[in-house]
């Protein structure tokens, strides 16, 4: 352990500014999570331009706080109105909304909060313990192995991020193509600029991210508002009655009695979070499903705190582990991890295993923020849940134009470049069309980020092997193994279609949740 770096990280993290931005991040995150239709990715994309104004710990505090808060925040509207704030919390609707209808909304929200924070905290400890070890292993990789590792990550993302393998990989292909616009990463020669001088610097990350994640979603929401197909179902009961202090809270005994469900959520969430492509929604439904099968006597699905504990610990346990591939290999495993990686890059720190030796103070600071963020989440969630439940009723008719304005300001303020705005709008419309035809956006953003590294590693491997392709591609046993694994993933996905099965589980569960609500 680098003691000097540890002290430097302490000095960076325990400042008023970092703590302030961490609190702001959690505060905004829980709010975003509680508003149906807004996700952690949208929030982080909109906040990314702020990283130009903040130092690295302030940025990490804001973004990690926002992520943690948003994953928990989704449960508030799931419990209050039976409408999950984000798909991650859809499994919470089954038990949470039934409890609210029985007048036990406060108990349900407290169970969601405590199980979220418990699993998040423990999974962060696991991350802190395993990430440096994996990074040490990753440091042994040469360019061939690194290249194949990226191919494996792209393949896994394409295979698992939707029900149609071709569309997942198409998204990765779009990211790869967009990543080549600008200059060649090795010799800095302009290419693929369509004759436009302003494209010589390549597509800038901030307008890309805001366009794909925020603007496209607002276009979709705007259309939904115009069609009046999606309205926030307002509970017939008064929120004050549901969450009032006189209503039944959660006892310590009840909280402790859910340790098995939280344990399932922790295990499933940590494992799934560390894998590229799956994410919090799958973790939440799997934990819920396993707990329901394992403990039929707890009547999970009929308005039980144990169902909430399993689902909420499952989704929050993915928050820390989703950063493991990013920190250990420099490859983001999810769109949120990609956005946090992008923020690090904007701060001049490239996520890679070498980060542990080049910027150990940033790694320690990140671990500290991950850890402390849970307590901030606990405090803000405990005090302001009632306020956030009201926020969930905020009309999308007001939110959509406001967020569109924020998207414009965010894209413009990053560099003050007019082209960034038009690029953001164009990419936003492209993202909207991608959503319409069922092409996931996560593989695009991740491949866009790793495309220069992929090219760099392939060219390094070729240089080392004097331009010979075969030894450059298959010169090591590990490289061959990873190539075979990538091929195996594609074959298995085509034959068994894991992504389709997971998507079906999610859709069926969503339908059941909807019928439960009705």
């Amino acid at each position: 352990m680098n003691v000097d770096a540890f002290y430097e990280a302490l000095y960076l993290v325990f400042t008023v500014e970092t703590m302030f931005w961490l609190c702001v991040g959690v505060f905004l995150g829980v709010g975003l999570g509680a508003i149906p239709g807004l996700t952690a990715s949208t929030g982080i994309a909109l906040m990314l331009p702020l990283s130009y104004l903040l130092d690295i710990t302030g940025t990490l505090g804001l973004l990690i706080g926002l992520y943690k808060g948003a994953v928990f925040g989704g449960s508030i509207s799931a419990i209050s109105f039976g409408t999950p704030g984000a798909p991650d919390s859809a499994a919470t609707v089954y038990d949470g909304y039934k409890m609210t209808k029985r007048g036990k909304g406060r108990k349900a929200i407290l169970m969601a909060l405590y199980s979220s924070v418990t699993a998040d905290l423990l999974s962060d400890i696991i991350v802190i313990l395993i990430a440096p070890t994996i990074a040490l292993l990753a440091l042994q990789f040469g360019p061939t192995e690194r290249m194949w590792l990226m191919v494996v990550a792209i393949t896994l993302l394409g295979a698992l991020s939707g029900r149609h393998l071709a569309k997942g990989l198409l998204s990765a292909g779009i990211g790869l193509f967009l990543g080549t616009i600008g200059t060649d990463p090795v010799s800095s020669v302009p290419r693929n600029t369509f004759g436009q001088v302003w494209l010589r610097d390549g597509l800038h990350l901030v307008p890309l991210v805001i366009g794909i994640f925020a603007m496209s979603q607002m276009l979709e929401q705007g259309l939904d508002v115009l069609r009046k197909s999606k309205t926030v179902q307002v509970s017939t009961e008064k929120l004050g009655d549901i969450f009032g202090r006189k209503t039944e809270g959660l006892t310590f005994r009840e909280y402790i009695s859910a340790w098995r469900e939280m344990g399932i959520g922790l295990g499933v969430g940590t494992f799934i979070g560390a894998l590229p492509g799956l994410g919090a929604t799958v973790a939440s439904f799997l934990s819920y499903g396993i707990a329901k099968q394992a403990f039929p006597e707890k009547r999970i699905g009929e308005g039980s705190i144990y169902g909430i504990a399993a689902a909420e610990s499952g989704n929050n346990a993915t928050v820390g582990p989703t950063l493991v591939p990013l920190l250990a290999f420099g490859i983001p495993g999810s769109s949120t991890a990609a956005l946090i990686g992008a923020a690090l890059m904007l701060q001049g720190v490239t996520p890679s295993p070498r980060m542990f030796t080049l910027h150990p103070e940033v790694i320690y600071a990140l671990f500290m923020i991950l850890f402390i963020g849970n307590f901030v989440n606990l405090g803000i969630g405990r005090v302001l849940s009632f306020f956030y439940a009201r926020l969930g009723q905020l009309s999308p008719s007001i939110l959509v134009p406001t967020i569109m304005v924020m998207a414009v300001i965010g894209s413009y303020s990053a560099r003050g470049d007019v082209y960034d705005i038009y690029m953001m709008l164009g990419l936003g419309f492209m993202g909207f069309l991608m959503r319409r035809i069922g092409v996931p956006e996560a593989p695009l953003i991740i491949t866009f980020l790793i495309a220069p590294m992929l090219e760099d590693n392939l060219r390094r491997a070729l240089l080392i092997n004097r331009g010979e392709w075969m030894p450059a591609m298959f010169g090591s046993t590990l490289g061959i193994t990873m190539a075979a694994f990538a091929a195996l993933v594609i074959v298995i996905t085509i034959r068994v279609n894991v992504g389709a099965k997971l998507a079906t589980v999610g859709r069926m569960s969503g339908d059941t949740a909807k019928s439960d609500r009705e």
Partner: protein
Amino acid sequence: MLSRFRSNQAIGFILSVMLVLLFVYIWTRPWAHREMRDGFLLGFFPMLGVGAMLFCTLAMTFDPLRKEVPEELASYSLYDTAKALVMVIGVGIYFAIMRKIGFVLVTPVFLFIYMGWFGVRPWRTNLILAVCIPLATYLLFSVLGVRLPNGILPALF
């Protein structure tokens, strides 16, 4: 008949045609065949990206899910897509005017029109929100040190 044009096969076919044109465009550019000092062709990765996309769109045309209509597309019409395009163009026009006239003067008009379009009623509430949101945003960003376009505002005072 209509659902046939919304199927993965039709989408895959249309995208394939567009990608073939893109591939031809790149192939015919002189830079694409320029050899770098390490012996690598400058156009290799862009063409790899287009090739990968083309492979996937062709797979969409022939794979077992080819007849399926994407769930998100089933309930949307071309008219909806046109409305989304109008929204985007509106935001673009808002930005172009905002740069010249100023954030504080143009954003209330934009918000008033869009919130009115999205059904925020009564109009008085719409107006109050359309004025208050930009003012609060301007103040917040000023505190954060972000300079939003002032436009003609300084000339007025």
